[in-house]
Structure formats: structure tokens, C-alpha cells
């Protein structure tokens, strides 16, 4: 369970986020919607540990999150360009979790299968479409066994007709018990997948 209590963030004296509170139960999907400039991405970056908070609390299962509990699927995926699909997924489990070659590879192939990406293992990111890159980014994050998977605008870098594909994929992952937090400005998409929708607005200056 992820609890965020009265979270606030200011950059150089400018308030970006104020009084953000929500609870995300295990296995649920929370979407955070709002126009650009509302601090959605900042919120995700704070939860992922890429940014510090100014005040407030973030708790995972009642404790301060330790690194690795939150997986991230970036807006433009940030796959490692010099590594194959398989190596993108197995690198961190091998280096950080000290999994054996075999374990890591087996897990990666299972994840790719689950995400309907079997057969792409040997390709490089430049050979993949946007939707395929996204699936690899998800597999890469899941291989580190996070408690929560966060997405930054999962529909924005893709063709509009792929939106339903993303919805299906996210709901499919929900069936596996995965807890997901999704930042989006696409309201229809947000309503379609969410158990809970949180709306954020830009804070007026001063």
C-alpha cells in the first residue's frame, strides 16, 4: 500500500505541489490527471525517488520507501540504446539483484511473453516501434520486482489508436496483482483504467 500525506514541493521558492494526499491499495490502479504544468510529473519523480520532497510523507506499507520499490516507465521510455531488448531487461537484475545469467534471462523471456513481445529479444531499441519500446520498458521495470509501477504519460508518445492497446495491457497487468500509478492528461484513458482518479491543478503563483 502506498500512502502519500500532505506532500508539497517548491522549486526555488515556487510552489509546484501542495497538500497532495492519497492512498493506493495493493493491486489497484490510480491515475493522476491534470493539465500540463500541474506538477504531475514532479509528483511521479518524487515518488520514484528522482526528486526530493519539500514536506509531507510517502509511505510504502507504512515505511519510508527504499530504492527499488518503485518502478518507472518513462514518457519516452529511456531504454538503454546500446543494449538489446534482452540486455535492457537483464542488466539490473544481474548487476543489482545478483541474479544468475540463467535466472535473469528466464525471467526476462517470461516477461516478454506476458507482454506479447516474444521474438524481439535480440533487437535494439532503435528497431522497435513506440508501443514495443513501452512494453520493453515495462518488462525492464518489472524485472526488478517493484511494489508499484509508475507510468509517466503512457499514451502521449504513442499513436492515438494505440490507446486501447495500452488500456488492455495495463488492465492485463492488474490481473497479475500489480499495483500501478499512472500520470496522464488523457481523461478518457484515466477513467477507463482507474480504480481511483486523482485530479491535480496548477497552483497559481504567489
Amino acid at each position, binding site marked *: 500500500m502506498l500512502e502519500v500525506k500532505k506532500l508539497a514541493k517548491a522549486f526555488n521558492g515556487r510552489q509546484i505541489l501542495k497538500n497532495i494526499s492519497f492512498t493506493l491499495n495493493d493491486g489497484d490502479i490510480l491515475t493522476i490527471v491534470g493539465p500540463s504544468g500541474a506538477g504531475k510529473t514532479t509528483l511521479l519523480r518524487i515518488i520514484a525517488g528522482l526528486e526530493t520532497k519539500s514536506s509531507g510523507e510517502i509511505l510504502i506499507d507504512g515505511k519510508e520507501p527504499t530504492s527499488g520499490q518503485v518502478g518507472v516507465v*518513462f514518457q519516452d521510455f*529511456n531504454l*538503454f*540504446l546500446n*543494449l538489446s531488448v534482452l540486455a535492457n531487461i537483464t542488466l539490473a537484475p544481474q548487476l543489482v539483484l545478483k541474479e544468475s545469467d540463467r535466472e535473469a534471462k528466464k525471467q526476462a523471456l517470461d516477461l516478454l511473453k506476458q507482454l506479447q513481445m516474444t521474438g524481439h529479444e535480440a533487437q535494439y*531499441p*532503435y528497431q522497435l516501434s513506440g508501443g514495443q519500446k513501452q512494453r520493453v520498458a515495462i518488462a525492464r521495470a518489472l524485472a526488478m520486482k517493484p511494489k508499484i509501477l509508475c507510468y509517466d504519460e503512457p499514451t502521449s508518445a504513442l499513436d492515438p489508436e494505440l490507446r486501447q492497446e495500452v488500456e488492455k495491457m495495463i488492465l492485463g497487468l492488474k490481473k497479475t496483482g500489480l499495483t500501478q500509478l499512472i500520470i496522464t492528461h488523457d481523461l478518457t484513458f484515466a477513467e477507463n483504467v482507474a480504480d481511483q482518479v486523482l485530479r491535480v491543478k496548477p497552483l497559481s503563483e504567489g
Partner: protein
Amino acid sequence: MEYVGQIMPALLAGTWMTVRIFFWTLILALPLGMLVSLGEMSKIKPLKWLVEFYVWIMRGTPLLLQLIFVFYGLPILHIVFPRYQAALLAFVLNYAAYFAEIFRGGLQSISEGQYEAALVLRLSRWQTMSKIIIPQVVKIVLPSIFNEVINLIKDSSLVYVIGLGDLLRAGNVAMARDVTLVPLLLVGVIYLAMISLCALAQKKIEKHYSYYR
């Protein structure tokens, strides 16, 4: 043809000097340039300023002048290098500055997203650099590095100014003695051969890195 046979030993001896300067400059200046590029991006201000000053001097003055200062100037401060070592020192310092600028450009062209992806996957700083950043930087800087490498072969002819006998000087000596352009023609062919080898190496290495974009 007989004449070519007569002057070839002298030209090859000069070539050997050129190759030695080339080889050792490359071996020493590449790692030094990498360190300097890290210094240029350091958050420690005095270190950054010092390194930037060094690059400013090295790029801002002719290599010929630097050679003269190292060999004839430093002895005034009681720092004396033999000719060959003085030439190497000047070349390494000069080329490291150029390499540093190339590496800095390469490092800065890697998107922040690659670092952030590594961070959320909990890769250490060292793992991030060695597995992700440096392989990408190498690919990016290859064409520029090879440009400098090819320049280096030709620049090595500047060592004549401190009395070292390289390829071009060997050709010059023969030309002045025998009053013919043939030695210089041969010198040109030898330079061309050396540089063609470099260009071939460049093609091979770039091909090796062409498996991704």
C-alpha cells in the same frame, strides 16, 4: 629506382620516429583527455578553472610554440627534458586538450534519461558509466577522435623544430642535398599509407559499433 633504394633507409628511419611519436601520444593523451573532460565538468570550481585554463592555453597557442617552450623554455626553470621526451610531453599535453573537448561533447550528448533510467533500476554510478554511458560516448566520439588521430600523424612533423629527425625532415634533408623533389614525393606516399591505415581502422571500429543507433 636506384635512387629510391638509396634514400629509403633514411626515410624509414624518419618514419619510425613519426610512428613512435604518434603511438605514444595516442596511448597517453586519450586517457589523459578523458580525465581532463571529467575535470571540465567537475563541481569543484578551482579544479574546473584550472582545467579550463589548461585547455585554453593548449588550444589557444600553436603546437609549434608549445614544443619550443617545453624544450628551450623549461630549462630556464631548471626543468630539462631530452628532445624526444620533450616532444612527447608537448604532444600529449596538446592532444589531451583536444581529446578532452571531444569527450566532453560526447558525455554531454547523452540524454539525462539514460542516467535516470539507470538510477531507478538501482545501478551504481560505476555500473551506469561502464555499461551504459561510456559505450555510447565511444560510439559518438569516434569520428571526431579519428579526425584528431589523422591530424596527429601530420602534426608529428613539427618535431623538426627541436631537432628530431622525423619522416618529413628526412625527406627535406634528401631534397636539399640531391636537389630533387623525389624524396618529398616518397614522403607524401608514406604519409598517405599511414593515414590510409588509420582510416581503415576507423571504418572497422565504426562498423563494430554500428549494431545500434
